[in-house]
């Protein structure tokens, strides 16, 4: 079994130094990899990313993250990515990475994702340019997640997003805001890409557990949802995922960050 520690929405500010490092240190020997589901910072400031970097620097396990909407707030996502990468964090955006755990290969594909809503109550690529840009941003993110999952050469695939792929893990949030919390296109990508587990954050008042239509277990690991410093999951190394394809794992994939609106 491969042990995954996961948490999202830690929202560190410049006043948060020293709060997350003990959590990371405490995972030594208890987890094989730490996945962060975005919203590492409060305002998306590079100074806050420096705090995050200091908290996870020297982590006793690989740290892999996607960014969240807060991390984009100050238009400094590139700089934040560079700061985190320099601290040894793998930042995913439409990309994947493979971690070797005692001979078993755990593949993680990640994307921030976006809103848009869920089947039957979703935005469509129609009408004003802004509306089209909104929906296209979601669809692009989902497509890139699917390709990133499919490209992983590994035994077990995990999808990591900030936004939610299903409404089940949003229960507790007001139904009216579901379209701002996630998109079913992400779930489609997870099903198509053969994920064994999907982790997301963003919905602080949501619920921890759900499943995609295709049966992929989904967990909302937003810090307020899990109610503890991080959640721990064990995934089987099981049979090699069928048709595991090409694509050599890239230890530090180049990050092509999604623009908030299409150019």
């Amino acid at each position: 079994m491969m042990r995954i520690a996961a948490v999202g929405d830690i929202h560190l500010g410049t006043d948060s130094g020293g709060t997350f490092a003990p959590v990371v240190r405490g995972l030594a020997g208890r987890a094989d990899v730490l996945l962060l589901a975005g919203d590492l910072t409060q305002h998306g400031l590079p100074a806050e990313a420096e705090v995050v970097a200091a908290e996870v620097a020297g982590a006793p396990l690989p740290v892999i993250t996607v960014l969240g909407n807060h991390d984009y707030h100050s238009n400094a996502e590139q700089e934040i990515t560079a700061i985190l990468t320099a601290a040894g964090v793998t930042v995913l955006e439409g990309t994947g990475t493979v971690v070797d755990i005692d001979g078993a290969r755990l593949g993680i594909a990640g994307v921030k994702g976006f809103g848009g809503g869920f089947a039957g109550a979703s935005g469509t690529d129609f009408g004003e340019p802004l509306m089209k840009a909104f929906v296209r941003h979601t669809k692009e993110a989902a497509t890139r997640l699917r390709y990133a999952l499919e490209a992983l050469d590994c035994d077990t695939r995990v999808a990591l997003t900030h936004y939610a792929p299903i409404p089940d893990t949003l229960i507790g949030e007001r139904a009216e805001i579901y379209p701002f919390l996630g998109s079913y296109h992400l779930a489609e990508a997870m099903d198509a890409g053969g994920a064994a587990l999907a982790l997301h954050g963003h919905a602080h008042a949501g619920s921890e557990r759900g499943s995609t239509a295709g049966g992929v277990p989904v967990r909302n690991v937003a810090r307020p949802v899990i109610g503890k410093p991080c959640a721990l999951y064990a995934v089987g190394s099981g049979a090699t995922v069928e048709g595991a394809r090409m694509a050599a794992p890239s230890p530090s994939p180049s990050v092509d960050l999604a623009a908030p609106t299409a150019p």
Partner: protein
Amino acid sequence: MEDAPRGLRESLKRVAVTLKEADIPFALGGSYACWARGGPEPVHDVDFMLREEDVPRAVEVLAAAGLRPVDPPEDWLTKVFDGEVLVDLIHHPVGRAVTPEMLERSSEMSVDSVRMPVLDATDWFEMTLLALEERYCDLARVLPMIRAMREQVDWDQVRRSTAASPFAEAALLVATRLNLIPPVDAAPVAARPGEIVASGGGIARSGAARRGGTKGGTAEGGKTEGRAPEGIGLRVGKKEDGREPAGQVDLGGKLDLAEADEYLAGELHERLAEDPRVAELGLEVAVADGCILVEGEVATDDRRRAVADVLAEAVPGRLVRNEVTVIGRATAADGTTKVETIS
């Protein structure tokens, strides 16, 4: 069944004595706190309130004393069994963290000959009334409790802190009409800082959904501000502590105070999300009779103060009740975290 209460009391005393000996701060809560204060004797379970950070140690000492811990799926309490008797250890009643201030407000009482802290009657009713919801709003259970404890309760405080709940409002209206509790003080709002009149007038709210009894989040109650009786109404316009705002932003300045409450609630909700000093998307804003109630959780005391600063700038002169609590995010990964196996 006849023995149940006696068995419950024995377990209640065993848990209380064990926690006292371990110096773990707690208060008797739930229906036994009501019983200790004169209400009907419960026949189901025993509830203790304690801070979330103390729960692991409490479970440890209780297990050492022979009780059997179980880890329930709920994230607002944990449970231990004393034989057949279920004892709840509650750290987030109605989604609000148990704070040191709440435990300090409890009063030392003799409960079946054992002295122990019993939850303050005002706090008790705040929780009980806020727990009422669509599937659980039987006033036939609540009214005897109001009769039993009414003289021990600051009902204006209960009205203020439950103003956002229509179920609590209904219970308080019935109790008022039955002359069980004093009527709402009709003094104008301006003369009563913090008051949100519970009767009459709608309450417009905006923000994250309120989570029934199951609020997640690790609470480090130590940082949560207490509920000073008259410190609730923070007069906006003059800064809480005279500090300058951390960063000035041009967000359009003051809002139009003449507009409808529900638009104002919506705009304040957005303002709290957009202002970099706060940047919290999950805060809930309610506007009623000119007063502004803001609820939710933030990570630090500074951010809680920033909420007050932002509202003070947006709606100068309005009364604001800052019910935002501070949750600790620190705590190392504890050894008791369960691993879920995904198959």
